[in-house]
C-alpha cells in the first residue's frame, strides 16, 4: 500500500478536474481562491484562461459547453468574484447548460462573521443552480467534484456550484487522493429509457396524424438527438419548426423546415403550429415566447411531449402523451417501432398540409435577398447584414449573439444546418453574452470560423473581454449591428408606448468602435453605406488571424417582424409596421 498520492485540497481539486477530463478553466483570481491558483501554477495539464470580468468567465465557459456539449468550468474568488458570476450562472441555468462553477469562500471559521469578501454564495446562487455543494471536509473534494460533474451533465443539464472555504485548500494539510470512478447519488436518477406503452401510444398518433408538426427545442440539442430526429422525419416527412434554442437540430435548408416559431417566428411556423392536429414536442417546454396565450394555443392539436424533465411536461400545455427519458432514446424507440409499421403509413396523406404550408410561406414568408436592391440612398438593413454574413461564411460558422433585434435577425436569417453552432442566451436574454461566449467557442474550435452578431448596446456589457481576446489571440469576428439604440426596447416603445423612446437612445455618446477595437490591439472597420457592406465583410473574414470588429450602421427605424400580438394565439401576428394577420 502507501501508493496513494498525498495532496493538499487545492492539488486534489486540480487532480480531480483533470481526472474528470477538464481541459480549460475560465476564471479570475482573488484572496479566497489563492491556494487554488497556486495549485494551477504548479501543474500543466489544465489551461486556465484569465478573463477580465467574472461574468465573462461564466459566458465563456457557457459558450464552450454549448458548442462542445462538454461542461464548462469556472473558477472565481469569494464575495464580488462570486456575485459577478451570478448572471452567467443564471444564463446557463435558464438554458440548461452544463457548467461547474468553483467559488472560493472565506475560511470556515470566518463563515457567518461578515468577514472580508464573505457572501453566502450557496444562498445567492441557490435559485439559479441545478445543485450546489459547500466543502466542509477537504477529504470530500474528489467525491464532490465527481458528483458535481455528474449532476451538471446528466438528465436536464445545468450549472452546479462548489463553494470551497479557503482552509479546505490550505497547502500544508495533505490527504490521500483517489478519484471515484462513479458518482453514486441515491436520491438522483434522471430517466433515460422511455416507457414502452407511451412509445406505442405516441406511434399510433404519428401514424394517424393529418397535420403534424415537429417542434424541437434546446433539449433535443442537449440530448444530441439530431440523427434520430432526422431519421424520424425521413419516415414521417412532417414539417419541422425549432425554438430559438433548438435552431440547428434540424437542417434549416431542408425543404420541410418551417423556420423558428414563436414571438419572432416565421409566419408559416406559427400558422402551422396553430393549425396542427398533432404536435410532437421534443425537448421543448412551451415557453411563453412560444405559446403566446396558452388558452388560445393550437386549439385542435394533440400533444406528444418528449422530455427528460418531468416538471417541464404539462406545465403550460397539457400533454396527451408524455414520454419521459433522454429524448435521443425516446426518438430511437419511436423510430424502431415505426419501422415495423411502415405499411400503415403513407406520406402522401400529408400533401394537402404541405400545400397549405407552402401557401403561407409564399404569402408572408421572410424576405430573402433583401440586400439585392439596396442603393446608397437607403440605409443598410440589419437583415441584409446577416444575409451577407451567412453567404460569406457559407452558413458554416459558429454564431454567437447578444440580445435584442440583432439577435432575432441573426436567428431568422442565418440558417443553421447543424446543432451547437447557434449560441445565444435564449431564456435569460442576457445582454453581454455574445463576446465571451464566442471566446469559449473559439477555444474549443480554434480552426473554425467563430463570429458574434451583436448590437452596440449589448457589446458594451462585456466589452472588456476584447483584452482577453488579445492575450490568447482569438481571431473572432464581431459584427456590430449598430442602430444607435437599444433597438428592441425602442421597438416595444414604438408599438406599445406611442413612440416615446424613454431611455433607449444614447444622445451621441457612443464610442468610436473602430478606435476602441484598435486600442485593444484588434482591427476595426466602420461601414455606413450599402455599397461598402459586402466588401467590408469580405475583408474582415479574410483576416484569418485577427480579431476584426465590424461596426455597421444600420437603419435605426427597422423593426423585427413577424411579431406575435400579446395575449392572442399564434395566428395573431404583426407582419410589418402597418399590417396584421
Amino acid at each position, binding site marked *: 500500500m502507501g501508493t496513494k498520492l498525498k495532496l493538499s485540497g487545492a492539488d486534489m481539486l486540480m487532480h480531480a478536474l483533470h481526472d474528470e477530463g477538464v481541459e480549460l478553466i475560465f476564471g479570475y483570481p482573488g484572496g479566497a481562491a489563492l491556494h487554488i491558483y497556486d495549485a494551477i501554477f504548479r501543474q500543466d495539464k489544465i489551461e486556465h484562461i484569465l478573463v477580465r470580468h467574472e461574468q465573462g468567465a461564466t459566458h465563456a465557459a457557457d459558450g464552450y459547453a454549448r458548442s462542445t456539449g462538454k461542461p464548462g468550468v469556472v473558477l472565481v474568488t469569494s464575495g464580488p468574484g462570486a456575485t459577478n458570476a451570478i448572471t452567467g450562472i443564471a444564463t446557463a441555468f435558464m438554458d440548461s447548460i452544463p457548467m461547474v462553477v468553483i467559488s472560493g469562500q472565506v475560511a470556515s471559521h470566518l463563515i457567518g462573521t461578515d468577514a472580508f469578501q464573505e457572501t453566502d454564495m*450557496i444562498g445567492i446562487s441557490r435559485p439559479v443552480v441545478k445543485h450546489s455543494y459547500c466543502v466542509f471536509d477537504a477529504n470530500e473534494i474528489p467525491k464532490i467534484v465527481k458528483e458535481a460533474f455528474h449532476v451538471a451533465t446528466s438528465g436536464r443539464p445545468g450549472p452546479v456550484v462548489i463553494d470551497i472555504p479557503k482552509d479546505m485548500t490550505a497547502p500544508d494539510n495533505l490527504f490521500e487522493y483517489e478519484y471515484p470512478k462513479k458518482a453514486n447519488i*441515491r436520491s438522483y436518477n434522471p430517466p433515460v429509457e422511455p416507457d414502452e406503452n407511451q412509445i406505442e401510444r405516441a406511434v399510433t398518433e404519428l401514424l394517424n396524424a393529418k397535420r403534424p408538426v415537429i417542434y424541437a427545442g434546446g433539449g433535443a440539442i442537449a440530448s444530441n438527438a439530431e440523427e434520430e430526429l432526422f431519421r424520424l422525419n425521413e419516415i414521417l416527412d412532417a414539417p419541422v419548426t425549432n425554438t430559438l434554442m433548438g435552431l440547428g437540430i434540424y437542417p434549416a435548408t431542408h425543404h420541410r423546415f418551417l423556420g423558428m416559431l414563436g414571438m419572432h417566428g416565421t409566419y408559416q411556423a406559427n400558422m402551422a403550429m396553430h393549425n396542427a392536429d398533432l404536435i410532437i414536442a421534443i425537448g421543448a417546454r412551451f415557453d411563453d415566447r412560444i405559446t403566446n396565450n396558452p388558452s388560445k394555443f393550437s386549439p385542435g392539436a394533440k400533444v406528444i411531449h418528449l422530455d427528460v424533465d418531468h*416538471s417541464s411536461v404539462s*406545465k403550460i400545455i397539457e400533454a396527451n402523451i408524455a414520454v419521459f427519458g433522454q429524448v435521443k432514446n425516446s426518438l430511437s424507440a419511436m423510430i424502431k417501432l415505426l419501422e415495423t409499421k411502415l405499411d400503415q403509413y403513407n406520406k402522401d396523406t400529408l400533401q394537402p398540409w404541405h400545400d397549405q404550408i407552402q401557401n403561407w410561406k409564399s404569402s408572408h414568408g421572410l424576405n430573402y435577398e433583401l440586400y439585392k436592391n439596396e442603393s446608397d440612398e437607403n440605409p443598410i438593413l440589419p437583415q441584409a447584414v446577416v444575409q451577407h454574413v451567412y453567404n460569406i461564411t457559407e452558413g458554416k460558422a459558429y454564431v454567437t449573439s447578444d440580445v435584442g433585434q440583432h439577435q432575432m435577425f441573426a436567428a431568422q436569417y442565418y440558417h443553421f444546418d447543424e446543432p451547437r453552432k447557434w449560441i445565444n442566451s435564449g431564456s435569460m436574454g442576457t445582454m453581454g453574452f455574445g463576446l465571451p461566449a464566442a471566446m469559449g467557442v473559439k477555444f474549443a474550435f480554434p480552426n473554425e470560423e467563430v463570429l458574434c452578431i451583436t448590437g452596440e448596446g449589448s457589446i458594451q456589457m462585456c466589452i472588456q473581454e476584447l483584452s482577453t481576446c488579445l492575450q490568447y489571440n482569438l481571431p473572432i469576428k464581431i459584427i456590430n449591428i449598430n442602430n444607435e439604440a437599444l433597438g428592441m426596447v425602442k421597438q416595444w416603445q414604438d408599438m406599445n408606448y406611442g413612440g416615446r423612446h424613454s431611455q433607449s437612445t444614447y444622445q451621441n455618446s457612443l464610442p468610436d468602435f473602430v478606435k476602441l477595437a484598435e486600442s485593444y490591439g484588434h482591427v476595426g472597420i466602420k461601414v455606413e453605406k450599402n455599397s461598402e457592406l459586402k466588401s467590408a465583410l469580405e475583408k474582415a473574414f479574410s483576416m484569418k488571424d485577427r480579431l476584426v470588429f465590424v461596426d455597421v450602421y444600420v437603419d435605426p427605424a427597422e423593426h423585427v417582424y413577424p411579431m406575435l400580438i400579446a395575449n392572442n394565439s399564434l395566428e395573431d401576428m404583426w407582419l410589418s409596421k402597418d399590417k396584421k394577420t
Partner: protein
Amino acid sequence: MIKRKLTLIMENKPGALVRVVGLFHQRGYNIESLHVDPVDDFTPYKFIEEQLETKFKENEISRLTIQTLVSDSLMRQILRQLNKLIDVIAVSNEETTYLKGVLLDENLL
C-alpha cells in the same frame, strides 16, 4: 384552492430544507405550515431502501411535512418540482408518491 398536505423524505444535508422552502417561494406556492423531524425508525421506508438499493443510516434522512393551499393542477407541478430537487428522496400528497421519478399510485409516506 384547497388545503393539501405534502410529505417529503429527504437527505439530512445542510441546505436541503432551504432548497425546499426556496422552491415554494420562487414558484409562488404558499406554505401554511411546515414541520421537520429526523427519521430514526426506517421500517415504514423499507420500500424506498429497496427501490433505491440503499440502506439508511442514523441521522441520514429527515421527514418534512408541509401544508399548502393549492389548486389541483398546481399540485402535480409542485410534486414534480420537489421530486427534482437532488436532496429530496421521495415526496407524496394524499394520493400519490413520487420516488425519484417513479410515480406510485398511493400515499406511501
